[in-house]
């Protein structure tokens, strides 16, 4: 443990506490380290959560490379690439938000978070249009699924995974959006100081993680066989 604090006598009301220090912690530093460690551990659980789907994807892609190539070509690579750029941009704005909070720039923090949220919203809107197109082409798995050619069976598996993976990702984005709204509000209320801006920092970690998941999803789902080996 980094700080070996000697026992302090009496109850903890004898010296002033930072407003944001919770009572079961001994110092802001300990509290901050705990929060950061907690968020990293949570992100590890998220890796395992998405991991199961990545495992299924990998196995089926190895077994059905032709179906994977054909189905992947049904996705709009332009929209996908655009969304990738949007998300990477939103991670940039998030990083600026953390920096602003760290340096005590309250208004800039709010602005950068709002920008992050706006970019996240753009991503979700594009996703909505992509899903809509899938509905119209009967590429949603289930009784209305339709896919030409002999690869229809495995293609339906591809689309099952597509919707599960992107749907799970979109759900995380929506949750992130809500979290950002709360953080923006707190920043607006000037809750953060250079001594304590932990919520901004750990929300940033979460947002970056959601971005990284997409950076894996994009090539795996959109860029299968662009070179046409399986055509």
């Amino acid at each position, binding site marked *: 443990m980094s700080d070996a604090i000697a026992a302090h006598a009496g109850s903890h009301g004898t010296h002033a506490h930072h407003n944001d220090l919770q009572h079961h912690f001994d110092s802001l530093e300990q509290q901050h380290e705990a929060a950061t460690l907690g968020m990293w551990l949570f992100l590890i659980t998220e890796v395992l959560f998405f991991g199961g789907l990545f495992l299924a994807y990998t196995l089926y892609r190895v*077994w*059905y*490379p*032709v179906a994977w190539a054909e189905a992947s070509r049904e996705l709009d690579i332009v929209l996908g690439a655009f969304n990738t750029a949007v998300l990477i941009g939103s991670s940039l704005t998030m990083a600026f938000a953390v920096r602003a909070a760290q340096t005590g720039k309250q208004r800039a923090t709010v602005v950068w978070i709002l920008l992050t949220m706006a970019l996240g919203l753009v991503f979700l809107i594009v996703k909505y249009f992509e899903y809509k197109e899938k509905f119209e082409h009967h590429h949603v798995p289930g009784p209305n699924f339709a896919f030409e050619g*002999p*690869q229809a*069976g495995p293609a339906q598996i591809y689309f099952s995974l597509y919707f599960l993976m992107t749907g799970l990702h979109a759900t995380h984005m929506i949750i992130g959006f809500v979290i950002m709204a709360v953080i923006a509000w707190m920043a607006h209320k000037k809750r953060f100081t250079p001594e304590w801006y932990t919520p901004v920092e750990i929300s940033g970690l979460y947002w970056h993680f959601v971005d990284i998941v997409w950076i894996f999803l994009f090539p795996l789902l959109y860029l299968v066989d662009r070179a046409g080996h399986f055509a």
Partner: protein
Amino acid sequence: MVSGIPLFPQQGSTLAADVDALYFFIVAVTAFVALLVTIVVIYFAAKYSTNDPLEVGARIHGSIPLELAWSIIPFLVTIVIFVWSADVFFDLQRPPDQTLEIYATGKRWMWKFQHLDGQNEINELHVPAGRPVKITFTSEDVLHSLFFPAFRTKADAIPGRYSTVWFTATLVGEHHIFCAEYCGTNHSGMVGKVVVMEQTAYEAWLTGNVGGGTLAARGERLFSDLACNTCHLSDGRGRGPSLANKFGAAERLASGATVAVDESYVRESILTPQAKLVDGYQPLMPTFQGLVSEENVMALVEYVKSMRVPSAAVSRAEAPAEPAKPTVPQENR
């Protein structure tokens, strides 16, 4: 048996005794360790017990030699068990080259067996004693498991692929067949009996139960009914590869890989023909999924197996593509 309580299944096959021997060895190891530790714990509890709550024990923290000893020695014992059991496992999973083939399907809630000569049985299986029997089977719906306690063998019946069990039955008489993978309402009713017979009795049974021709003949009829013969011409000039002498050979695929033409590959080619396309052929074959039952697929498999043409009659067009000698597939699915 102790007064009506079965303590032990009968040894009904050649491998049953091997499995039992391994089992008894593990029982011995288990009993030895369990007794040793139990006696030690009870002895210590008795010998060192005290009623004085303030008395403390000796200041002993550990012993590296002891830790190493009781880590390494048990590990070595488990290695022995592992190697021995792997050996028994290989025997259980790898049938000998020459086996009497039987096909089966499980469906909720019955076992259907098809013999090569055309006999069909439900929940009953007649086999000869003293000959290796291999059952190739699948499920028509959910997971099941074909379990013969007397032969100490089982395998899951998985929809979408073939499994096999094999045994050489030794004990004449009737033994249990159980479904050993939960499959719904009547899982515990999906039982039957395997009837092991002397060779002469078995042959009598075979002749007394024939109707409708052999399994391969049924397959031949299906082959023509389903128009397979319009593409799979035996001179190799059809839209599909010739199937003569194909079973047991290795086939080169369009992807560059090689596949062994076994029961699973034939089944796969009928139900998902584009999955492993043969090199040099177009992806034209339609799927027969939903058009052919699993039992009829087995008949087709048997027919393809039977398409052994004497070597002189093999078409020149095929000769370079074949290996010198067909290999018997050993893989397990």
